[in-house]
């Protein structure tokens, strides 16, 4: 008996390492698609490298796939041809569509098992994370609109250096700051993002409580447009030309050139603005001015795992997603890129708190996120509604004979059709 035992032990001793070696053979290859170029793209690559170094059994390959919409296009083609990546960044508005088609992995069981607390994520950023009771994506690079102003110009005009807090204050400040021919008080792209913010500030929601009608087919929706129109007509608000990102670029340029005193634009521009304004003027940031309350929509993209992969790979993919959305990485990514930190624990961390002291403007953005972020409806047809609202509000600004009331009606009709 003992001899047998020794033989078995000997066998195990020689064969054992081989058994172990087989389980940790080749690293599992995981594909991660992302939509950022430039410095943020490089940041993601370095985070991926750190993960790969720390997890020798997994090798994540991250590849740039174009902007948000190109990436979505590619994911669709990939789904149809069964060549999907394991993980991808998905622009917020598209998460519902992919979830609805069942191509996103349910993260809830993973989170439960690994004790990743969904409640640690900032509630305002979870609008595109839930679908049909499942957790389909986690916030990754999220942004909000922010109110930026030229502190020096405000000071010189005798105005409160904390910026306007209400719509009416915005109007009076813009009046005081406008120098005809030289400078506008305020500029804001006529973009659905900022418009929705104003709807939220007016106490409105995108959808009615039953989810079938417009939540702002009344004064709540028309007041922002009249407000903008009045300021444009008075000559105190400048309309940046162009659409979407082109007009945001122009707004930022004008602000940096001192031609506009106050703008509304994305937190995504915060670092760029702070950088370029250094030595020229002091940049102040504030909540988007309130009407009845403060309110802001969110934007940016989430990170999701695509379903249909072998269990081992999905497991490895989860490990990566868990890593990227874990507090230390959230802190690192947020501080370096200027995107919103997605977790409360990240915000309250010592590292972030001292970071806020250096960059108080960043803190303002996060405070607004906590206090005033409102969700947009997580619905597959939302992207089309987004475009319709954008077209309608642009139309009311360019074609004065088209009333805001007509626009609201058209939007309501669209909601009824799409939702």
């Amino acid at each position, binding site marked *: 008996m003992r001899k047998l035992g020794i033989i078995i032990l000997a066998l195990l001793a020689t064969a054992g390492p081989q058994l172990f070696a087989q389980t940790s053979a080749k690293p599992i290859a995981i594909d991660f698609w992302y939509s950022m170029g430039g410095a943020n793209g490089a940041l993601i690559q370095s985070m991926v490298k750190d993960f790969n170094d720390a997890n020798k059994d997994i090798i994540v390959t991250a590849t740039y796939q174009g902007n948000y*919409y*190109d990436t*979505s*296009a590619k994911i*669709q*083609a990939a*789904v*149809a041809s069964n060549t999907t990546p394991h993980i991808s960044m998905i622009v917020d508005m*598209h998460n519902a*569509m*992919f979830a609805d*088609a069942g*191509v996103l992995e349910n993260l809830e069981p993973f989170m439960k098992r690994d004790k990743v607390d969904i409640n640690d994520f900032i509630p305002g950023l979870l609008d595109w994370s839930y679908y049909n009771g499942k957790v389909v994506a986690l916030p990754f690079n999220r942004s909000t609109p922010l109110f930026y102003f030229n502190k020096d110009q405000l000071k010189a005009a005798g105005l409160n250096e904390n910026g306007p807090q209400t719509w009416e204050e915005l109007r009076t400040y813009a009046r005081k700051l406008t120098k005809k021919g030289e400078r506008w008080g305020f500029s804001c792209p006529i973009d659905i993002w900022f418009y929705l913010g104003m709807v939220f500030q007016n106490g409105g929601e995108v959808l009615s409580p039953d989810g079938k009608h417009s939540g702002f087919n009344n004064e709540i929706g028309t007041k922002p447009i009249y407000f903008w129109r009045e300021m444009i007509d008075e000559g105190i608000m400048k309309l940046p*030309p*162009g*659409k*979407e990102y*082109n007009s945001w670029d*122009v707004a930022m*340029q*004008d602000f940096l*050139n001192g*031609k506009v005193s106050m703008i509304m634009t994305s937190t995504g521009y915060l670092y760029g603005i702070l950088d370029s304004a250094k030595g020229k003027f002091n940049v102040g940031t504030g909540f988007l001015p309130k009407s009845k309350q403060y309110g802001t929509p969110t934007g940016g993209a989430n990170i999701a795992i695509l379903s249909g992969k072998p269990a081992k790979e999905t497991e490895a993919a989860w490990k990566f997603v868990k890593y990227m959305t874990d507090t230390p990485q959230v802190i690192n990514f947020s501080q370096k890129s200027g995107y919103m930190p997605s977790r409360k624990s990240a915000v309250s961390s010592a590292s972030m708190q001292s970071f806020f002291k250096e960059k108080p403007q960043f803190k303002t953005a996060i405070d607004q996120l906590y206090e005033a972020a409102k969700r947009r409806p997580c619905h*597959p*047809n939302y*992207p*089309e509604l987004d*475009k319709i609202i954008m*077209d309608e509000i*642009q*139309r009311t600004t*360019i074609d004065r004979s088209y009333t805001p009331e007509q626009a609201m009606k058209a939007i309501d009709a669209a909601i009824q059709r799409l939702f």
Partner: protein
Amino acid sequence: MVERIGEKRKHKAQGSGIKNYNPLSPYLMLLPATCGLALFVVYPLVYLFRASFTNRSLLKPTAKFVGLENYIELFHSVEFLSVIKNSILYAFLFVSFSIIFALLFAVWLNRPGRIWSFAQSAIFIPYIVSFVTISLVWLWLMDPQVGLLNTLLGAFGVSYPWLSDTKSVIPSLVLVSVWKYVGYYMLLLIAALQNIPRDIYEAVKIDGARARTVFFRITLPLITPSLFFILVVSTTEALRIFDPINIMTQGGPINASSVFVYFIYEYAFKYFRIGYASAAGVILFLIIGVLVGIYFNMLGKRVHYQ
């Protein structure tokens, strides 16, 4: 000697000269091209056509047949009708201006000498540069407030809204496209001009004809093959335009610059409606097909070959 598409070679009495060939030869020679066309032209076309009758989404393995619903929705859509109008307007302006300017430049610059050669090259350079690069630069130049163009115009006390107004956006886009393509068309026309035998002009000079008559009665007809080629190529190019709209205007302001391919791309990939987008694609294909057909059947007759 020109061949009209679909017509058998009836008119050439002596054929092309080639004799005693294995009847399989042409088929063998066309095999690679046929494979290519089958895979990369016919197959996508069939896919498109089929998808246009469904509510296909790439994300779902099966799709529901919806008959003509997509087409009906398209023709009731204010946006799509705008797309048709914009595309045709853009194409018309682009083709007219690029041919007119190509002709003007060709006649003007078709002289020996370094400076003329340099000018030809200068005008040709935009053609070899990526449309993406060109769109980025012109986007910048055309900014109504900080762009160089309005700064220059400002010196004369005028300003132009360029891409920011619904009425000026298409002309602005046409300006950029013509700027890019005119050099290539010009070179084709210069080539055609240089291929006209001198003796024709000598003969006419003896008759004492005026320059203008010479141009319209003799030069122009002799370069019609090139003009025809440019017409076909520029029309198909114009109706398939995408990059400048994608980069400079995103279809705006308010869909004033939304053209076919941009509309299709948006609906397919931003709103996930491949069936609907395919229907628009089929319509685009038919429009181009009809135009090319018209060109070949009506204008092809007026093309003079030597």
